[in-house]
């Protein structure tokens, strides 16, 4: 039986006798040199480009409007705002070192490069939470809030699921544990952020703290690409290593993502309970809808009942919302056609 439980060896930086195009995601042969024009999965170059195109930094967003509005928030809103901020920061803090750690065991240089970009983006996210905090509250309170996030039993409980898997890989980096780490990375980036996102977008739809939610929107846009990348990583890992593609591992994914879903609901019930205008029952449905999307992204079936997005207002801001200027195909051509709808005699299904 092959070694899904055999430790992956830390790969050498350069292996001159091996090809530049890796022969495998893990346990493959690769020189260590990266030529993007000769990679095993050419679609990874597009993904890399998309990640770079999303580049942003916190300091570009002027927090003045939010600073002025801060004092008008209710005490509950302020409290929840700060708690969610530090909780999200603590999640991002885990991602940067974990992704750079994974890089040591991935044999395909193009994937390494993408992990490096994603780790960099997580570092930016981390900074943006600090930047928001520094705009709004003094250092003493910032530290108190970080301590609060560290001590909060519900936060700890939900982080534990991720931590156990990440630590297990650190201890013994096997293919099996890499698969499990990837599933938990989907939990972290693709499930755990959304109660927090819901809160900030909810403020934004009341025109509150819009600069903060602009950053949240950039973060969500990045996280969506990360979750997509990790889902591709999982698919390729399972395809290249059929011994990992077992019924047990499929069940592992269902069970673990379901666990994250339950923890996210629990966290939402706790952190959002005093926020008017967010229906917690609806949010539970939303988390299930969200998890169904994650299952489909990794090529599995829906686990929860099929439903429409119950909270469609949780989404990335459009360029117009952020007052960016567009330069694309339709900008240059100008929009020639009037918008039409089903009232014009065709069906929109």
């Amino acid at each position, binding site marked *: 039986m092959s070694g899904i439980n055999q430790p992956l060896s830390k790969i050498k930086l350069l292996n001159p006798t091996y090809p530049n195009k890796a022969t495998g995601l893990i346990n493959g042969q690769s020189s260590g040199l990266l030529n993007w024009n000769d990679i095993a999965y050419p*679609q990874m170059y*597009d993904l890399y480009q998309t990640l770079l*195109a999303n580049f942003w930094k916190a300091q570009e967003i002027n927090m003045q409007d939010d600073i002025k509005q801060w004092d008008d928030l209710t005490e509950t809103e302020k409290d929840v705002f700060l708690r969610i901020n530090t909780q999200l920061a603590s999640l991002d803090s885990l991602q940067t070192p974990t992704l750079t750690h994974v890089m040591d065991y991935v044999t395909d240089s193009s994937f390494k490069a993408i992990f490096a970009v994603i780790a960099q983006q997580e570092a930016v996210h981390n900074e943006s939470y600090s930047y928001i905090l520094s705009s709004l509250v003094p250092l003493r309170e910032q530290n108190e809030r970080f301590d609060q996030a560290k001590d909060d039993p519900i936060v700890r409980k939900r982080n534990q699921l991720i931590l156990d898997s990440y630590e297990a890989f650190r201890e013994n980096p096997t293919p099996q544990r890499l698969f499990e780490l990837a599933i938990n990375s989907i939990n972290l980036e693709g499930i755990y952020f959304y109660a927090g996102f819901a809160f900030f977008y909810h403020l934004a739809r009341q025109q509150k703290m819009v600069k903060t939610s602009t950053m949240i929107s950039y973060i*969500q*846009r990045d996280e*969506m690409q990360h979750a*997509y990348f990790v889902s591709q990583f999982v698919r390729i890992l399972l395809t290249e290593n059929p011994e990992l593609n077992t019924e047990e591992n499929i069940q592992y994914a269902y069970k673990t993502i379901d666990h994250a879903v339950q923890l996210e609901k629990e966290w939402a019930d706790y952190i959002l309970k005093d926020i008017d205008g967010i229906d917690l029952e609806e949010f539970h449905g939303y988390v299930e809808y969200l998890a*169904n*999307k994650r299952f*489909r*992204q990794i*090529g599995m079936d*829906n686990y929860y009942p*099929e439903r429409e*997005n119950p909270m*469609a207002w*949780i*989404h*990335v*801001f*459009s*360029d117009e*919302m952020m007052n960016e200027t*567009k330069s*694309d*195909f*339709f900008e240059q051509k100008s929009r*020639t*056609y*009037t*918008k*039409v709808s089903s009232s*014009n005699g*065709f*069906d*929109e*299904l």
Partner: protein
Amino acid sequence: MKAAIIYTSITGNTSLLAEVIHDNMEAKGIETDLIPVDEFQNHDLYDYDIVTVGTYSWDNGEIPLEMEDVYEAFETENVKHLSTGVFGTGDSFYPYFCGAVDLFRDMLFVHTNLAVTLKVELTPQDEDIAKCEKFCDRLIHQVAVMS
């Protein structure tokens, strides 16, 4: 009656949808060609009664680069005879969910007999699969109305 499905896909979701639509058309007795965008040529538009376009959306709900020639082909060729439909997959977490479907819709409405549009979130779910059959029925009905 002959139909074509011109499509592009990056994650495999749109190509899956294209295949489901293809199988539905064939099941209804309509000979249907699946044409990946890199095999498309403008004169293909004259070989069919029904042409459907399948596309994902890019960036701020834009048409992907590789589909721009298809878009322009409908504008420059004589396609008044065609009954058309457009479908696509996307993620509603982005602004302008399936924006490329909307952009094709508005253009096809002007130049062709647009019958139907279909938007699907990521991999098609059961309800989406059911909609594919309606999508085909609507296209076939459109041809009947036209003739």
